[in-house]
């Protein structure tokens, strides 16, 4: 079994118009910029994008929005140091927004990966974000019922990967990446280095290969934060 794919372009080649796409990362940390930019080159339309944020500057998810790929964002925090791409699209009515509390977002994604179609959380009870959702009382406390959140594709960034799809991450770059890997029909991981099966200690694997469909090596990935500080624009 060999899940490696030669290039980011080849890895994202089959993502169709209208796809629901999870994209890992929290800000620039753990953001799969090379996969995102390869997707922009392909330019599918009407995507629903799931990420904690809604892009920053003019690269990554912000560039996806500017290039007109994104019909809807599902995120917890559509602000950033330079949120102009999302803000303009939103105010012009070109993009739909679903705001989800960050922990609920993470848990909805994990629930999809774990086969849990719905769960209860105290988060958002009594707030506008709970409107229309079933509420139930357990042991005298109120909870809101939330549904799983699945995707057609997940684009994630890992650190080391092997051909079986086993992955490690790098520091806080882990964030949403391992749960998104579980929740998509097809999970595509960019890794800084592909190693041989067995080279990652079985104790240290964070995402077992069962959750990963494709691994593409990007040896020196750019860091979104650096690009933004340089004022970079894609393409």
């Amino acid at each position, binding site marked *: 079994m060999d899940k490696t794919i030669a290039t980011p372009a080849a890895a994202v080649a089959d993502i169709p118009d209208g796809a629901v796409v999870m994209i890992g990362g929290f800000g620039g940390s753990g953001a799969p910029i090379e996969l995102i930019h390869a997707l922009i080159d392909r330019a599918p339309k009407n995507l629903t994008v799931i990420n904690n944020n809604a892009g920053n500057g003019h690269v990554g998810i912000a560039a996806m929005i500017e290039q007109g790929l994104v019909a809807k964002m599902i995120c*917890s*925090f*559509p*602000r950033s140091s330079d949120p102009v791409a999302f803000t303009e699209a939103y105010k012009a009515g070109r993009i739909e*927004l679903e705001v989800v509390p960050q*922990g609920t977002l993470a848990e909805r994604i994990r629930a999809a990966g774990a086969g849990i179609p719905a769960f209860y959380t105290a988060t958002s009870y009594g707030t506008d974000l709970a409107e229309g959702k079933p509420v139930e009382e357990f042991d005298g406390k109120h909870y809101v019922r939330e549904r799983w959140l699945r995707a057609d594709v997940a684009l994630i960034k890992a650190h080391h990967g092997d051909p079986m799809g086993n992955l490690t991450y790098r520091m*806080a*770059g882990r964030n949403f990446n391992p749960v998104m890997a579980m929740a998509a029909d097809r999970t595509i991981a960019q890794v800084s280095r592909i190693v041989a099966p067995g080279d990652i200690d079985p104790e240290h694997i964070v995402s077992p290969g069962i959750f990963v469909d494709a691994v593409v090596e990007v040896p020196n990935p750019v860091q979104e934060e650096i690009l933004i500080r340089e004022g970079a624009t894609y393409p």
Partner: protein
Amino acid sequence: MSSLDDIKLTNAQIAWRAAQDIEDGAYVNLGIGFPEMVAQYTVEGRTPIFHTENGVLGFGPAPAPGDEDWDLINAGKKAITLKPGAAFFHHADSFAMVRGGHLDVAILGAFQVAQNGDLANWSTGKGAIPAVGGAMDLVQSAKRVAVVTDHVTKTGEPKLVDSCTMPLTGVQCVTRVYTSLAVVDIAEGHFVLREKLPAISFDELQDLTGAELKTEGPVADLTVPET
């Protein structure tokens, strides 16, 4: 009373006061911005462990400029460092810590805090793009939820109110408010004044507060160092 601006605490001083209540070994989440300052005033001899939503427990202050590693950031997307014994984990595990009640203290900012503990801090409700982050998770589940805030808005309106008029972040969740003028607890649906600046009278403070300030026993002087 002198001008409010002359007597009121700086944010740093409010943060200092909040830090005095953080116990040794407590697991603490500090909101983005002003609440983050609380970490700078950790009491000598105590080692709270700081949690950030994006998957780090046990982080330390910002690195020296130029030493940033942008894979190592906090929820405010600022570069951080690690202390010995730090751990990384994914987002679902991070919010398992939050939602599961494992955090001892969460300290957040506020637009409004109501006397029943309701908190509004995520949306002005005025057509701005909504952005909630992890606040709704934190306020419903940390063992103790505290707020650091100016006592009044920039235009002088009370931020401690009868009931919130802005969209809620959480219901009946805040138990203590550290303001620029006072320390106020929330107990059984009421504000209870614990400490106030010596330079302001009780009546003056009540006038700046949007609901009744009750007292239980003596009100202590709120005294903080120059910062």
